[in-house]
């Protein structure tokens, strides 16, 4: 078996293992071992990938495997990875591993919880390795649907409302994607031969500009819904706030990245001319996302809402960077996906742990937690500093790259948009420092809090892994950004060829 299929097989085997587990302890250990193996597999994949590249294998995709599935429709099980997808797989493996430990003490229906959670991650892994649009879409939907049950059953607050809203809005996005994919399929061979769903094959075809312009909005908005593109972001705050800890982590950390990944891998890569012509609309929308999300976070009092709005802002920055159409900015976009993925997972994990102790998420009701739970407090500060882009952490690397890339576009429109986006950093600093100040510093305003304990071992595992990720990227970003920008080559090339200035 090839290494990529392993990423689907391991979760499936884990799920089967969980089904046959007897008690709660066995269930969670099976899940942890399975996802631990997945993390090892991801690390192996990264090493193998770098070795191949070093050995001079410059093929667009590595570890390609092609099995015919539906011969008559030319649907394949076609998988392969480039630098970007390898990085995303690494991210997913880290977040899901941390997520398992963050949900160590799920209250009820443990078995079902871990099965659904791992099913969701299967969809995500499958999405990142697929090169066939049909399988890509299939995995995309597999990743979306378990959310309904996860939020609906194990969530808090208005969970039924949030779960339904989230599911329907994301499925609405997938409706747009479906139309776009069918449009690509039926235009994948203008000379009238065999049609194909293969991403690589379609990327070699020149689709007429008029057709591109028709389908580009379907695909970009479709994936954009999942990437919290304004004004389709409203599912995100509600969904994240109601979701249980591990689900918020996985959702904000990984699932929202599916949107950004799909935007450039499918929409921009396959329809470059349309991307050039219609990009300005989405640049406006993403600029609004960034600022609106940041400002939204300032007004919120609920920790989860703060983080959810900050996710809207950060994910908006990903989409914004993709639309800058140059290598630096796009590398920044992928870096931002990874950095934000780990960072926001860390935040949600910590929020979950704090909530588990204080039973409130309103910042005004808390204070001085640093004295009571120093480990969690420090972790929160680290996450916060990474979020506002302090050098030494992953956030700085990503955002700096984005802004440098964005500034390469010299016309006024891009400049103005870039400046607005850059200014969001200030707003980010405001809400991060405000939360840290109220929540962690100051004096303890509730005597009950004085007896709360610090993190348990499994919580330390969870946060430790994530903090390691943030600082590793922050301190040694070069290997990662090189790996990513290597994968972006073909996309940039295609964009340049389509560029009107060229």
């Amino acid at each position, binding site marked *: 078996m090839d290494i990529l299929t392993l990423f689907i097989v391991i979760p499936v085997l884990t799920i089967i293992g969980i089904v046959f587990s007897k008690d709660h302890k066995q269930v969670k250990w099976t899940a942890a071992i399975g996802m631990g193996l997945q993390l090892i597999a991801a690390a192996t994949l990264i090493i193998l990938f770098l070795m191949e590249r070093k050995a001079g294998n410059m093929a667009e995709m590595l570890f390609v495997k092609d099995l015919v599935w539906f011969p*008559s429709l030319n649907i394949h099980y076609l998988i392969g990875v480039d630098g970007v997808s390898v990085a995303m797989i690494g991210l997913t493996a880290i977040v899901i591993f941390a997520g398992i430990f963050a949900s160590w003490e799920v209250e009820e229906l443990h078995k079902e919880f871990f099965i659904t959670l791992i099913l969701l991650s299967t969809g995500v892994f499958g999405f990142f390795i697929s090169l066939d649009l*049909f399988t890509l879409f299939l995995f995309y*939907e597999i990743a979306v*649907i378990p959310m309904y049950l996860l939020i609906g*059953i194990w969530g808090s607050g208005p969970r039924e409302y949030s779960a339904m809203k989230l599911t329907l809005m994301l499925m609405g996005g997938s409706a747009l994607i*479906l139309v776009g994919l*069918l449009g690509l*399929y039926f235009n994948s061979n203008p000379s009238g031969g065999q049609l194909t769903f293969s991403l690589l094959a379609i990327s070699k075809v020149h689709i007429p500009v008029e057709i591109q312009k028709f389908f580009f909005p379907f695909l970009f908005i479709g994936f954009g819904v999942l990437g919290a593109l304004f004004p389709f972001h409203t599912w995100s705050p509600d969904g994240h706030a109601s979701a249980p800890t591990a689900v918020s982590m996985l959702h904000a950390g990984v699932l929202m990245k599916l949107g950004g990944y799909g935007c450039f891998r499918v929409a921009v890569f396959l329809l470059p001319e349309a991307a050039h012509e219609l990009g300005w609309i989405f640049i406006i929308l993403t600029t609004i996302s960034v600022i609106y999300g940041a400002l939204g976070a300032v007004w919120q009092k609920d920790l989860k809402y703060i983080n959810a709005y900050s996710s809207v802002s950060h994910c908006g920055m990903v989409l914004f960077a993709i639309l800058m159409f140059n290598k630096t900015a796009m590398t920044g976009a992928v870096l931002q996906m990874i950095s934000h993925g780990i960072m926001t997972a860390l935040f949600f994990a910590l929020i979950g742990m704090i909530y588990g102790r204080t039973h409130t998420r309103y910042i005004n009701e808390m204070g001085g937690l640093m004295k009571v739970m120093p480990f969690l407090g420090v972790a929160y500060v680290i996450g916060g500093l990474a979020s506002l882009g302090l050098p030494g952490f992953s956030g700085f690397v990503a955002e700096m790259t984005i802004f440098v890339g964005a500034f390469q576009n010299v016309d006024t429109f891009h400049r103005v948009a870039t400046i607005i986006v850059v200014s969001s950093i200030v707003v980010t600093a405001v809400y991060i420092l405000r939360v840290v100040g109220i929540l962690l510093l100051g004096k303890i305003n509730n005597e009950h809090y004085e007896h709360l304990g610090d993190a348990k071992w499994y919580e330390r595992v969870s946060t430790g892994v994530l903090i390691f990720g943030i600082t590793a990227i922050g301190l040694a970003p070069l290997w990662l950004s090189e790996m990513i920008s290597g994968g972006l080559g073909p996309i940039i090339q295609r964009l340049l060829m389509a560029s009107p200035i060229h």
Partner: protein
Amino acid sequence: MLIMRHELLLVAITVILLLVEIFLPQDKKHKIILPAILLMALVTIIGFIPGPTGVLFGGMYGTSPLILLMKNILNIGVLIIFTQSVSWLKLEEQKEKIGEYFVILLSTLIGMDYMISSGDFLMFYLGLELATIPLATLAAFERFKEKSAEAGVKLIFTSALSSGILLYGLSMIYGTTGTVYFPEVSAAYASAPLQILAFIFFFAGMAFKISLVPFHLWAADVYEGAPINVTSYLSVISKGAAVFIFMIILYTVFNKIALMWRDVIYVISILTMTLGNLFAMRQRNIKRFLAFSSIAQAGFILLGIIGQSQLGMTTVVYFVLVYIFSNLGAFGVAAIISSKTGKESIDDYDGLYRTNPMLSLTMMLALFSLAGIPPVAGFFGKFFLFTAAAKQGMYILVFIAVLNTIISLYYYLLVVKAMFLNQSDRPITYFKSDVYTKLGLAMCIAGIIIIGFASPVYEFILKLSYGLY
């Protein structure tokens, strides 16, 4: 003989069951259940053995490999319905009529088989009537229940009306072309006004049978009143057979005016999906709910028909196959709950997962398949239907259809929500399902999971449909 083997086998087992039924004493009628199911299983298996195909009676009757497959699909569906009916048939009210149930149901199936195989309008009409009239007795099977009796009467009236309309159309076709044989009608068909009128009457008549909007109003009441297993038969098998012949006739007889019926179907399809979905959302009775959802599903099937190609034909047959397994899965769970507890409201399903996890999971799988969620078969079925329509460049129609799948997802999720999310002080208590029900549901689950992944199924249908369009 061999060409007509499906029908002849069914006639044979119908007669056998009738005879056995006569000689069984009054209190031993339930002994017929096992032989009935075994015989039906036997017929289903024999049906899959490849055999000759061809034309009989000078073209009145004809089969092709694809038509044989359609009959096999219907056989599988009926077999599953038989297994699902057992616990209901064993109830006190039905005890004495068990034999009749099987015999009547089989005779409608024979009618459907003849209808699908017809090569002229006469045979088609005969088959249609044989398939419809016994259904009314089935709908009124629980004759002491007011609603069931009402359903029977409603069904017979609406079928009579729709048959009348249909027949009127057929008579006009005969009047303008001078023949009832499909190939000859097709050759003689032009777009004369009377012929177009004839087509419209034909279309309306068929739309009644498939319950397309705006000819769907009978469906909800009949589905609600009829016993739940009969409802599943009506909404799955009966509808599937009607879709098959409708597609065959559109493609082989009315192929010359395809440009015209394409527009009609375009509009009807949108109406059917949308209205079916909007009404389904408001239903609290599980039977009515599934009735409206099956109306909406019929709208999706039209997308394949509009595809007008080998691809379209294949996707329709494939989708009906998937639809049979999915819908019967949902109906099977509803049926066993109804016969064990008498509860038929979605509100009663609150907290079902905690008391009857297996049933809830089956229901969820079936509903996800109906909604078209991967990785279950419904996703593949819907995706291919959309592909067929997109092939004609009808992206707007596809988009509307996909939006409709989201609406449908909403109400399917409402049931999932009741079972998994809601808590109840008086949930349906745990009960053990009988062997037959388990078998039937297991078949549904197997179908729902396997048919999608197993691409050979799709490729097989595609191969059979070659050259038919």
